[in-house]
């Protein structure tokens, strides 16, 4: 069935192009086709030790497939790691398509075709058994994303995506070539990498290449542009889903392919390889800087983009530390981020769909107009900030525990303060968009968009109640790496340092909320309009043109303090790289003089050196 799914995705993508004139029909078909990968996930759940009712296993997927092309063959197989990431992407994808049906209007066929192609690429990447298949599907995915970024008509986004995407592909390809040179095999399973310096360089290049997709600093430059200038359903999938593929790749090569032997060849620090430690430090820096930058944004999409970069940094921390606890935490964070960031981008899209505004300072008061969108984003924001009313806390807790367990004294405070910083921009979204003065008299978002958002909120609640399920899903992955799963029951996760009991939290919250409700409902109240406001006795209606919404430059003192340190950002760094490249390139161009005699001289020189070398040998 695997190859059939790939074929159906490809076929539907072409069909979409034909249905360009009928966006609704195209969207509906695309939605139903997009459910296929999710059926595959359900079908494979049994093999991963997850028991699901048999009626959910609609299509029986085989666990591996080989598809012979003329020159070679595609080798596909599902692994526990792949299954986990496919679960995230395949459950996000149908919801994004459902949302798109009411959102995408212009040239919809192209949109759906490209989206289906990204899913095709994703499906292949996750199932790939060898490097060639992996790279083939990686490129399919990358170029489909490029097609979707092109639809934003923003030069900066397109150019930066193209540059960084190519760089990423080059780095990955060079890494693959070095690995192939060393091991003489393309199959991941047959590669037993010796702890040599060359292999470590190759691994670094591959990880750097994946870091581009995972938007780790300083490889993140493309992300804020691409995230903020494309259509929302796609951005939700890009930020929530596709960015995880970078971390999937990192995890695959760092732990499945390379293993601790190679990682530790550079040395270890408290049983954590320096390689992993550096990744954790980069991750912590990304988490911190992304958060600070997010606080300063006024464009809703840019804010979410930087927040996404910051939250993805946590995954890198977990992968860098590499203990069972940390890997579970990283996977949990990946899961949470997939859903809450998708919900936030979709909610932002719904707000745009109704108001046509992106700037936070121009929005406001939509909480009463779009209550369901507001509540969905409220849940997502709770998850983002790590408030223990959603699953967001458990992931952060696991990562903090992992860091403290390894006695990381300097990384942990940075992680924690980035977590606090998240409250700042979370409130900026809440206040700027949903609270305060109502400025637009709009309707609630269309039903399709609401359903998509609310289904994506569900996992955040489910994994609040059952954080142990993520540990269950992580167990086969850890087993593959020769690690013990962390001790857990569905409700309680135990580490060497502490215990997280979700039942105590849930019952505590329910109990105290009931208590507060009793206290609160005791006295009657009347509801007054928003205009009935204390402004030193001044009735606001006298000033019709003055907005009482204080969201413009909301964190101005914050910006005053931090902006000097963040002004010369990553783009400056890349400008330096560009400048160096230009100098080198100009130097190299001098060789190409365009004169035939010069070229003859070069050839002659080449042969003289060759002969000289042969003689000296």
């Amino acid at each position: 069935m695997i190859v059939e799914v790939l074929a159906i995705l490809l076929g539907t993508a072409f069909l979409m192009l034909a249905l360009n004139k009928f966006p609704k029909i195209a969207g509906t078909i695309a939605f139903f086709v997009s459910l296929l990968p999710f059926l595959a996930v359900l079908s494979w759940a049994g093999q991963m030790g997850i028991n699901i009712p048999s009626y959910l296993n609609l299509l029986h997927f085989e666990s591996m497939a080989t598809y012979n092309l003329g020159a070679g063959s595609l080798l596909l197989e599902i692994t526990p790691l792949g299954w986990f990431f496919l679960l995230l992407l395949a459950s996000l994808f149908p919801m994004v398509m459902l949302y798109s049906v009411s959102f995408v209007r212009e040239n919809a066929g192209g949109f759906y075709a490209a989206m289906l192609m990204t899913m095709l690429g994703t499906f292949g990447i996750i199932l790939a058994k060898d490097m060639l298949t992996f790279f083939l599907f990686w490129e399919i995915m990358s170029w489909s994303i490029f097609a979707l970024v092109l639809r934003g008509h923003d030069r900066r986004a397109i150019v930066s995506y193209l540059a960084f995407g190519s760089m990423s592909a080059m780095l990955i390809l060079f890494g693959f070539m070095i690995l192939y040179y060393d091991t003489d095999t393309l199959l991941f399973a047959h590669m037993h990498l010796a702890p040599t310096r060359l292999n470590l360089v190759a691994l670094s290049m591959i990880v750097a290449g994946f870091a581009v997709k995972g938007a780790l600093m300083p490889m993140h430059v493309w992300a804020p542009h691409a995230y903020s200038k494309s259509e929302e359903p796609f951005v939700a999938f890009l930020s929530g889903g596709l960015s995880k593929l970078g971390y999937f790749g990192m995890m695959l090569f760092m732990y499945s392919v390379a293993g601790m032997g190679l990682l530790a060849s550079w040395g270890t620090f408290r049983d954590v390889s320096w390689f992993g430690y550096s990744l954790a430090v980069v991750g912590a820096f990304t988490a911190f800087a992304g958060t600070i930058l997010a606080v300063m944004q006024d464009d809703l999409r840019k804010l979410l983009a930087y927040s996404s970069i910051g939250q993805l940094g946590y995954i890198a921390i977990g992968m860098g530390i590499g203990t069972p606890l940390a890997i579970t935490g990283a996977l949990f964070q990946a899961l949470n981020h997939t859903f809450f960031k998708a919900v936030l981008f979709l909610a932002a899209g719904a707000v745009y769909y109704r108001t046509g505004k992106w700037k936070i300072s121009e929005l406001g008061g939509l909480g009463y107009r779009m209550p369901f969108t507001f509540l969905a984003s409220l849940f997502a924001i709770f998850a983002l900030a790590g408030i223990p009313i959603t699953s967001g806390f458990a992931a952060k807790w696991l990562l903090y525990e992992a860091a403290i367990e390894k006695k990381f004294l300097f990384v942990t405070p940075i992680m924690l303060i980035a977590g606090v910083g998240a409250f700042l921009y979370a409130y900026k979204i809440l206040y700027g968009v949903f609270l305060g003065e109502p400025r637009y008299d709009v309707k609630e978002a269309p039903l399709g968009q609401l359903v998509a958002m609310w289904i994506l909120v569900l996992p955040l609640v489910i994994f609040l109640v059952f954080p142990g399920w993520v540990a269950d899903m992580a167990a086969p992955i850890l087993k593959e790496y020769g690690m013990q799963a962390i001790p857990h029951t569905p409700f309680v996760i135990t580490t060497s340092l502490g215990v997280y009991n979700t039942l105590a939290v849930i019952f505590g919250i329910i109990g105290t909320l009931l208590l507060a409700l009793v206290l609160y409902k005791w006295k009657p109240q009347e509801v007054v309009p928003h205009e009935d406001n204390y402004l030193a006795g001044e009735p606001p209606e006298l000033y019709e043109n003055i907005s009482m919404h204080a969201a413009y430059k909301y964190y101005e003192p914050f910006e005053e303090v931090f902006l000097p340190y963040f002004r010369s950002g990553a783009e400056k760094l890349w400008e330096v790289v560009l400048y160096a490249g230009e100098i080198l390139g100009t130097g190299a161009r001098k060789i190409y003089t365009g004169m035939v005699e010069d070229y003859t001289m070069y050839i002659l020189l080449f042969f003289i050196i060759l002969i000289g070398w042969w003689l000296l040998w």
Partner: protein
Amino acid sequence: MTLNHDDWGKVARMMSKRSLWMVHFCTGCGAMEMPPVMTSRYDMERFGMHAMATPRQADVFLVTGYLAVKTLKRVVQVYEQMRDPKYVIGFGSCTINGGMYWDSYNTIKDLSKYIPVDVYIAGCMPRPEAIIDSFLKLMDMIDKGEAIGWKKYHKYYDQYKKNQRMAYAYRLDEVEDIKEDDAK
């Protein structure tokens, strides 16, 4: 007098009287007399009184001095934003009969025509002792259930509103467009 005061329980009255939070509307010169009342010389916090920043939080409304018609609009706004039970103290002669502004074309002369006043303090200026005395008087009235200005405001709302509109319009016959405005 048909207003009964039994629904406002005795315990609640005791609490209410010992915790009077005050918002002061200081347009006039009377504001100058407040610092000694608050600080260590007279220390009104002895009685649980506290100056509050917004009318939503306050129980007592202290109007210090003259009110122009323009400020009367704000005073009414503030008074209506306060939550029941609420009390008003008229401070100084200006709130009683206009004081030295008795013939000014733009200041209202008698505050109690526009909002119900529970306690007046006469004088120009009243000394801090007089202010403290008025607070004690108000507490006594609350205890006995006599400070019922807020109930009067609810009961005779039409009359108060009519008077306010007359002042806003600077004429006794109410202007049509204000009526329409009110209907909205």
